[in-house]
């Protein structure tokens, strides 16, 4: 087991002929991910790192049996790519790396995915990895180690930071999910936490949140109500000045809601330990197991 992706994951890369698409296709192949197809309209018949390219996702899926897509196309075309991915028969999981998709497009896409029963991760996310099985994303594979800690995070690079320290401390990971920092995302903390709760391979969960929104507060409530596996957390943005935009659309403090202090309090209230600095996390996690 593991969550969302595993050794049966067969990946189609949308935007495979672009700079990032090609680069990370190689990264995924090197990691051992079964990348079976690529898609760029009009580039049928080409190959990228030995992966055959198709004009459309439906054909790529039909010819290669891909069940997972990762999207690298620029934001102007990403909305279309998201619809196309979910519309292909047999598609199970779509990871959208693209940053800069208009949130109102995501409103409609979210409903489309619900309707189709396709799991969306992202957009504006680093992807997902089940170490030793499959990496569908841009995460640096070498820092991960197969194990029993589930990691879910709104951030990208901060996740690497945390995972690196977990691995150095000997805490391997079952699955690590970067859910993305945009306002409207497909998979949120609650989805990931409930998947980790029922995953036999996962023994504990590290949650990495940040300022903005109330997702962490809802996660705290969910943990209290539904989880018996230990969870530890870190919240970025404890010192961010209110009202200043910090890069992610999600990382805005809206009125009295969404401060790091509130989020930290919500976790502590339900007995979830919160690390003061990222490097504290491995010890906190190890103690909880």
């Amino acid at each position, binding site marked *: 087991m593991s969550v969302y992706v595993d050794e049966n994951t067969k990946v189609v890369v949308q935007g495979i002929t672009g*700079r*990032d698409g090609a*680069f*990370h296709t190689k*990264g995924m192949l090197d990691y051992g991910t079964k990348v079976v197809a690529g898609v760029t309209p009009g580039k049928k018949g080409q190959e990228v790192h030995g992966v055959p390219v198709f004009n459309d996702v439906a054909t790529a899926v039909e010819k290669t049996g891909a069940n997972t897509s990762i999207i690298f196309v620029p*934001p*102007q075309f990403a909305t279309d790519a998201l619809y196309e991915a979910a519309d292909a028969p047999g598609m199970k999981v779509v990871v959208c790396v693209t*940053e*800069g998709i*208009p*949130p*109102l497009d995501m*409103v*409609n896409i979210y*409903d489309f995915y619900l309707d189709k029963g396709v799991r969306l991760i992202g957009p504006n996310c*680093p992807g997902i990895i089940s170490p030793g099985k499959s990496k569908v994303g*841009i*995460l*640096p594979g070498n*820092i991960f180690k197969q194990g029993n800690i589930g990691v879910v*995070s*709104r*951030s*990208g*690079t*901060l*996740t*690497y*930071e945390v995972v*690196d320290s977990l691995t150095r401390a000997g805490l391997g990971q079952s699955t690590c999910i970067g859910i993305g*920092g945009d*306002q*409207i995302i497909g998979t949120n903390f609650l989805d990931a936490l409930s998947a980790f709760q029922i995953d036999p391979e996962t023994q504990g969960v590290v949650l*990495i949140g*940040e*300022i903005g*929104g*109330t*997702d962490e507060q809802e996660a705290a409530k969910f943990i209290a109500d539904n989880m018996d596996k230990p969870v530890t957390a*870190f919240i*970025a*943005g*404890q*010192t*961010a*000045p209110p009202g*200043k*935009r*910090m*890069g*992610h*659309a*999600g*990382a805005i403090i809206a*009125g*009295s809601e969404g401060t790091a202090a509130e989020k930290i309090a919500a976790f502590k209230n339900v007995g979830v330990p919160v690390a*003061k*600095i*990222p*490097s504290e996390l491995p010890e906190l996690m190890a103690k909880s197991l």
Partner: protein
Amino acid sequence: MKLQEYQTKSIFEERYGIPTVEGAVASSPEEARAIAEKLRSRVAIKAQVLVGGRGKAGGIKLAENPDDAFEKASAILGMDIKGINVKKVLVVKAINIAQEAYVGVVLDRKRKCPVVIVSGEGGVEIEVVAKETPEKVHQFPINPCAGMRPYKARTIIGKLYDDQNKIKAGAKILMGLYKAFIDCDASLAEINPLVVTAEGDVLAVDSKMVLDDNGLFRHENLAALRNLDEENPAENEAREAGLSFVKLDGNIGCVVNGAGLAMATMDLVKHFGAEPANFLDIGGSSNPEKVVTALKIITRDPNVKVILFNIFGGITRCDDVANGLIKALDEFKVDVPILVRLTGTNENEAREILSRANLPMFTTMDKVVSEAAKLAS
């Protein structure tokens, strides 16, 4: 991207049929007088700035006649409101307000749809109303596929008015407001106050719209409305280079990839007793030029005593960052120490590249930040 009141007013009125108060924008006292003459009425002179609380700051004044409009406009133009120099005023007819309400459309990240917010308490900050008297704020999630249906608009506005004619007029305004929100890829479209005049008309007296930056690529005409002169020049420059930058008051310049890691880096700077000079996210897919721009902007700040790079490569390649750093050092002189922590994608190539610059290299975030804090103190 925030629009000025006068910009939003004209979009609401001309494209979405929302009745607003008659008037025009002026950049000088003379223009303000001319507008007042044309309006043949008492007028309100309103500072056009993108910060809240301009009323309390004296940025809104009534004028009895054209000469008075000249005087009042003279007083407001050039005024400093929360650090912003007032360059334009909106001159509109003064109206007799019988009732004030709030109506706004926002995107709800939790419900994943647009939500209409209305309140019978208008003309004040809705956040304050929501905090102090939450029972006076009504929220209505809107099904994105069905859109804003007339019945829904009537039901929502029915929370504000009892009179059928006012409900009809208000519902029409709300349908326009919702359409503006959707059409313009806004993250906020707001009328505050929505006014019933003594004569019984329903009018948008203050119009506000914030556009989502991610949607701007398909709205060239709206993107052109950006009010550059109200933004921090460094922040403008950063945005144009594809960087996310916020100026702060400390002395440690931070170059980080990823918003989360950048915030965590700032937190760590404070944890070690120092203060960050900025938030700076060089983003994913960074090319060397971004790093050059980032260093240019940071080194311009005289407060900066030390610069730290905290890069964890994923989609960002460490070698791109290293190349950028070398390129910047070739182009201009940096007088403060630069501490570098690079790890992840193409880390070895990056170390190779940086070896010739002889910069102090670190392997962990804790170490690079604590060292920077030490140097800056």
